[in-house]
């Protein structure tokens, strides 16, 4: 004779599959009807609730953060390899390193490898036998270049080479591609650090500008590479793009100390490029890419305020800077408006709100309102904008000032999102490695939780009805 639990299970499955109705099930088991009917009714009333979709912004941001997390954790794991490949520079004293590399160069030239090998290595790609020779040769060239500006230009040229390698490896070999991306980061970091060390002596504006313009170009190249990804390499390419943006901001911050107007101009070009990319992607139906570009645009827009603050801190007038940003906003709003209906309204609205907030900020700056530090004695020429004469006049934009957009999605700073969160540590005791989600790396598992092991009492058919309340569970 079938037990109630089996009848119940069969009836639920049959009703869910449409093979039977509640009434026909009950008719088959008239003697069990009294027990069966209420349980079946409860079971069938459990339905998936509507409208449970994550916000698009969240999906994109969470994806980006996931990829960053993966990348970071990978970098930590392979730090010893990086040490062998490139970290030597960071650890050795520069003089020791230079000496060592010159010796390596001499050995390379006079060893069996010879110049032919070095020449052949020039076309090699990450993962190929001769690639380490190519990198060593580049490092030797850099070490043998004693002019700072020339060294920066050399590192930028190497960064171009890395991008070519990335382009050649995309869709082919993800591990080698990652090596190329790491190399790109290294070259840009070398260039930036060199320029920043020169900025201490006050002679580096031109160098910083050179790097910044190169990064603008790099972003376009990386965008093109990103568009060509069809199988593997997307994460690595996005890493390169994210790094180029971060480096750009770092360079512009330094540039803003000396020449904030130029830093603003470059940031505006950068924003314009992002908007154009968003527009083109939206027109081509690449919605996710378009939205991704709009989020990057929003970040750049916020960064424009940072440039202004740096300018003020270093005693520059912010009037011209804000005027530049205000004049760019008109075009920006027009492009964003044209994307209406092509990407999600949430992202359009949040982008417009960002522009609105930026407008308000720069209006205050351009008018030199008291309290923002803009009316310093060094800025006698700060005349307020004539109201009503600019397209950015309040009332001419759809954005109400003060309506800051809620940032959907999680920032790495938010609790619960960091791998280091207490309770999410790999060291958490009591997790059995066999279970998915219960591995030593898995947070959130309760070692004492009954029912997570097959031998747990209370989960066998022989002992129905004896399940104890499980510890740690929600109870009201």
């Amino acid at each position, binding site marked *: 004779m079938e037990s109630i639990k089996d009848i119940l299970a069969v009836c639920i499955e049959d009703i869910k599959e449409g093979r039977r109705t509640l009434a026909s099930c009950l008719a088959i088991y008239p003697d069990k009807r009294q027990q069966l009917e209420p349980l079946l009714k409860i079971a069938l009333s459990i339905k998936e609730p509507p409208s449970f979709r994550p916000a698009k912004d969240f999906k994109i941001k969470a994806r980006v953060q*996931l990829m960053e997390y993966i990348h970071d954790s990978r970098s930590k794991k392979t730090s010893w390899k990086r040490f062998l490949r490139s970290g030597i520079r960071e650890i050795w004293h520069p003089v020791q390193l230079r000496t060592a590399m010159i010796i390596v160069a001499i050995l390379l030239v006079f060893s069996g490898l010879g110049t032919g090998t070095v020449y052949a290595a020039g076309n090699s790609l990450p993962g190929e036998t001769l690639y380490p020779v190519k990198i060593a040769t580049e490092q030797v060239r850099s070490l043998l270049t004693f002019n700072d500006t020339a060294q920066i230009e050399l590192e930028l040229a190497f960064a171009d080479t890395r991008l070519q390698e990335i382009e050649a490896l995309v869709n082919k070999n993800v591990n080698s591609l990652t090596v190329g991306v790491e190399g790109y980061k290294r070259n840009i970091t070398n260039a930036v650090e060199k320029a920043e060390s020169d900025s201490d002596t006050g002679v580096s504006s031109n160098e910083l500008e050179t790097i910044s313009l190169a990064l603008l170009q790099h972003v376009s190249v990386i965008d093109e590479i990103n568009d060509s990804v069809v199988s593997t390499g997307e994460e690595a390419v996005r890493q390169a793009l994210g790094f180029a943006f971060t480096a750009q901001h770092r360079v512009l911050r330094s540039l803003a100390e000396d020449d904030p107007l130029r830093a603003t101009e470059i940031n505006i070009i950068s924003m314009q490029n992002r908007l154009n990319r968003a527009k083109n992607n939206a027109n081509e139906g690449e919605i996710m890419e378009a939205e991704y570009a709009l989020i990057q645009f929003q970040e750049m827009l916020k960064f424009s305020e940072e440039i202004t603050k740096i300018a003020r801190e270093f005693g520059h007038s912010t009037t011209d800077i804000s005027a530049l940003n205000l004049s760019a906003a008109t075009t920006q709003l027009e492009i964003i408006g044209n994307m209406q209906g092509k990407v999600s309204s949430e992202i359009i609205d949040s982008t417009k709100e960002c522009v609105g907030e930026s407008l308000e900020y720069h209006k205050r700056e351009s008018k030199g309102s008291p309290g923002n530090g803009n009316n310093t004695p060094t800025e006698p020429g700060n005349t307020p904008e004539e109201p009503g004469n600019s397209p950015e006049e309040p009332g001419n934009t759809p954005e109400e000032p003060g309506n800051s957009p809620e940032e959907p999605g999680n920032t790495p700073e938010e609790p619960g999102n960091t791998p280091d969160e207490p309770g999410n540590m790999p060291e958490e005791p009591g997790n059995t490695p066999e279970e998915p989600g219960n591995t030593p790396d898995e947070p959130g598992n309760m070692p004492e*939780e009954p029912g997570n092991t097959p031998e747990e009492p209370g989960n066998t058919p022989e002992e129905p009805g004896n399940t104890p309340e499980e510890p740690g569970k929600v109870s009201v």
Partner: protein
Amino acid sequence: MQEKRNTESATDIELLIDESVNGNADDFGRIYDLYVERIYRHVYYRVGNTKDAEDLTQQVFINAWKAIGRYKKTTSPFIAWLIRISHNLVIDHYRKKKDTTYFEYEWEIKDSYSSPEKSVEKYFEQQQLRKVIMRLPSEQQQVILMSFIEGFTYAEIASALNKTEGNIRVILHRALKKMQQRLQTEQL
């Protein structure tokens, strides 16, 4: 690119999983694209608010990446493995909060029923059911949600939870009995 991600066949998904197990982050990114909505929905059902659902969903994929090297194929689909991770995180989330206050859902009351009254009635019915489900012991919760919200078969649930189908039927029966008792008590 979105279309490209959404058209993955079962074989493609298998390949994505294999590649992810081998450490291919790009392919894991595609797995994220495929399953993020479903995981979010599952988590949201259990926590009832956007903020926690977003935090936990993100953490599910981070944890999945950490554990992917040890993933072993079973007869249950890959999503069941992710749901298991979600389940553990939600349990941990409530445990850490220590506060047993229930979040009311941020649900909209949809006019999908014959009348507004009916819609409201259905809304409260689902809210009540959810509360009762959330008070079940962890394992019973998991089986109920996997069966009725996620639509897994008993065989799939059994495989995902490393139990027999017989175990699952017992757990299901107990869970429904407990729900029945609690619903009756609340109505009194």
